[in-house]
Each structure stands twice: as structure tokens, then as C-alpha cells.
């Protein structure tokens, strides 16, 4: 119940105060939601729309939501942003989604850091271990123990 109430409040806040370049899309399950992100300020991602999926558990906000980039072929979202911390399968290596999560953070703060994550990126490349990770990655990004070694991006 606690998780549900908090999600509702967050959604309401997001609905009333929208974020630039970010649109929230709800599903009929309150524990699953999508957001589209567009970063026009960065030439790497210009004119592109990316989609993020959040899967929230009952333990929220004590544990972070599972968050990854997804494709939505029907809507023309066919790519996962190319970024040194984003894998081909959409998994994101971001400490906020793992060890650095605390209940103070919100869906909004994740979206904001994803947005700046993309906006500040200058390297058009995948993580160095992308191909091996892609083959063996668990379905849920939260089952991966990422090592957050790069603070520069």
C-alpha cells in the first residue's frame, strides 16, 4: 500500500509539473510505466525519441525501480540511445538505479538524471563489454551487479 500511495503522488506531481523533453505514459498497471525522452540539445540524439520502462515493486521506495530503455516499433521508437553506459539491450549502468538509490530519490529524479546523462554525453559508443553482456544479461537489469567505475559521464 505504501508503495502504491507514493507512486500515485509521484505521478500526480509529474502530471502537474512536466519535465522538458520527457513525457510519461501510464499503463493499466500502476507498477509499470513508460516515459519517452528526447534530447534535442545534444547532436548525438537530435530528432530521436527514446523510451524508458520502469518496473516498480512493492518494496519501493526502499528499493529502486527497475529501469531500462526499450524499443516501441509501433510508434517508431526503434533504437536504444548509444551511450558508453547504456547496453544494446537497454540496460543502464547508473549508480542511482543500484547502490546509490535511497528513498529520497524519485521517478522524477531518475528521469532527470537520465536526461542529463544523455544531454552531456559526447561519446557515440557502447560500453566496452557490450557484446558479452548482451549475450548473457539477465532479463531484469536489477539482477546485474554493475560496477560503477566511471564518474565522468
Amino acid at each position, binding site marked *: 500500500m505504501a508503495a502504491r500511495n507514493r507512486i500515485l503522488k509521484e505521478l*500526480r506531481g509529474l*502530471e502537474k509539473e512536466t519535465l522538458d523533453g520527457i513525457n510519461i505514459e*501510464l499503463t493499466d498497471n500502476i507498477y509499470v510505466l513508460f516515459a519517452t525522452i528526447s534530447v534535442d540539445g545534444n547532436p548525438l540524439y537530435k530528432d530521436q525519441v527514446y523510451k524508458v520502462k520502469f518496473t516498480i515493486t512493492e518494496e519501493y521506495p526502499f528499493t529502486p525501480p527497475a529501469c531500462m530503455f526499450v524499443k516501441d516499433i509501433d510508434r517508431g521508437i526503434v533504437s536504444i540511445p548509444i551511450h558508453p553506459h547504456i547496453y544494446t539491450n537497454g540496460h543502464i549502468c547508473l549508480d542511482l538505479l543500484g547502490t546509490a538509490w*535511497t528513498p*529520497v530519490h524519485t521517478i522524477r529524479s531518475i528521469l532527470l538524471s537520465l536526461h542529463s546523462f544523455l544531454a552531456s554525453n559526447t561519446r557515440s559508443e557502447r560500453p566496452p563489454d557490450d557484446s*558479452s553482456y548482451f549475450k*548473457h544479461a539477465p*532479463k531484469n537489469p536489477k*539482477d546485474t551487479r*554493475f560496477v560503477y567505475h566511471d564518474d565522468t559521464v
Partner: protein
Amino acid sequence: MSSFVPTVSDPSDFAHCSEPRLVEFDSLLRCHICKEYQTAPVLTTCGHSYCSVCIRKYLIHTAKCPICSKEIREANLQRNVLLEQVVICFKTLRDDLLEKLTVESKVDDRQRRGSCEVIEIDDNVEVDDELEIVSETKKRRNVGQGGLESLFKRKKTPPKVGPLGTCPICAKQFPIRVLESEHIDLCLNTPLLEQDKDSIVPKESEHSYQKLTKLDFSSLSNTTLKQKLAKLELPTNGNRNQLESRYNEYLILWNANCDSIVPKDPKVLRRQLAQWESSLKFRKDDHDRQLDKKGWSDLIKQARNSKMKTREEQDDAQVESIDIMSTNEEDDSNLITSAQPQNCSIQASTQESTDHERVFAD
């Protein structure tokens, strides 16, 4: 989106009233963990404040302050009495405040529109005062910078004051015109904040609730544990695990309640405990069902796809292939095994899929 999100109170309620800075004030009074107004707030050693229940539950996960990540202990949490009084006070006033500020902002809007469309004095303008303002603006525009504020002031205290009268409710003096037209209504609708402060903010009540202590379950027999639960008037059914987690949850609810200046009756706490327990059961069922339906078939699909891919690669190299179109269960199990991570550079815990594999092998 709006159709889906039901009405819950949230700081952004103030965003569109005439004092949007209240958004910040509202959010300051809320707990960072549950985003509700703080209930029985407690202060950490690093000076941050949370609902007693929330921080106690979080400290089981991580013994750090969610805001500043300093190490904190449950034993060092202190009641934050003043904050609780402030929260209760604001909660009581909130609806009225919101209503009043929203109504005022509508009036403001109308005034602003009136002063912008200087020439158009239409029949829709209802009140005499506003007609005056419109014409005032017109004159002042011609002169130069009129200053909207002075106009508004003018509206609130018209130059021709007239005789003063005493409000029968708050005993203050106002021009009779103001008194009759707006003040009495306002005064009747205002909670008696100025007259009787004590009626909103509860005083610290002296209750006799003693905090419960953590139990060392390893040294307790089932019977003694059940006795302890029975003493607290809690149910004693279920297995050992359920008994222990029931006690622990109640411990948190109870101790958090002790931090409040207006503690709830133990009955209420027991009801909360029952709700928690039933939500737990529902969650477990739900989880099982999801695994059965979705997780399982997805897993098979995933395994097939990845097998298909590796097979295509291997075909060129003329490596021995398995008949992937086969749908019988033995092959599926092979496929899943082959889809397991073998030498992954990143440690991936694939507990879930290995579980499935095991089930399948059985």
C-alpha cells in the same frame, strides 16, 4: 493521464493558487520516504526528519540516513514534537487555505484581465468596484506607469471608507460596507486560529505506551513467542517465520506510534498489521502467478531465440546443431541451459532462471 491518477494530496496542489511558494512549504512538511505529511516525525542524529515508521523500516534495509548517507541507528532517533505540531496544524488548515487562495487567484485573474483590456468595458463585469478599477486604469494608462499594486490596494480599501462597524465574531473594526459584503463570511469560514490556537495544535498527551524491545528469536521457543504475541493481543497462527515477521512489523508500528504526540489506539495498530499481512499474502500469490504465466513463457521464448541465433552463427562453421524446432520439454530444458550465461564479464545473478531450470529438471 489525468483520468488514471486519482486525487491524492501532493505539494503541486498549491502550484496554481495565488501563492505558489506554498508548494515548497508543503513539501518540506512531507516525509522523504513516503511523501505523506510526516506522522510521528523523528529526528536523526544528522538532523533529518522522517516518519517514525518509514525510517525504522528503512533502517532494516540500510543503516544510513536516506538524505545524507551518514550512519544512523534506530536507538538514536528522537521525537520531533514541534514538527509534528506544525504538520498537524498545517494539515488542518490545508483545505481551507487551498480553497481560499484558489478563489482569490480567480478574482485576481479577472482584475488583471480588466486592467489589460482597458477599453472594453462590457456588461459582464458584475461588481461596481471593478468598473471603477477599469476606468481608473484607463486614466492612469494615459498618465503613464499606473502601478497595478496601487490599484489593487485601492480596491481593498476604497477611498471613501464610510462609517466603521465592529465584527461580532473577531471584534475588529471594519468599514460597514466591507463588513457586510465580505468580512463576515470570511470570518465565519476561518478556523478559529487566532481566537483559540490550542484547538488546532494538540498538546503533547501523556500516554503510558512503553516501547517494545527487539526479541532474540534464536533463544525463544515457539510457545514463548506465541505467548509474547498473545500478550500483545496479536494472532498466533502461522509458521515460525510468519510469527517472527509479524512480531517485527508490530514492533515497528508500535514503537513508531510511541513517538507520536497523539498516539493511536493499539486496536488501530492491530488493524494496520492485519492489512500488512494480507497485502503480503496477496503479493506472494501475485508473484507466483506472474512467474507461472509470463516469466516462464518469456524465458522459453528468450532461450529459443538466443539458441536460434547461436545456431545461425554456428551453421556456417558447420558445427553440430540441435533441432530447435522441437517443442518437447526435454529440448526446452536443453535450450534454457544453453542460454545461461557462461563466462560473463559482468557478474550477473541469474537466480531466477536457474530456479526455473531446476524446476524444469525435476
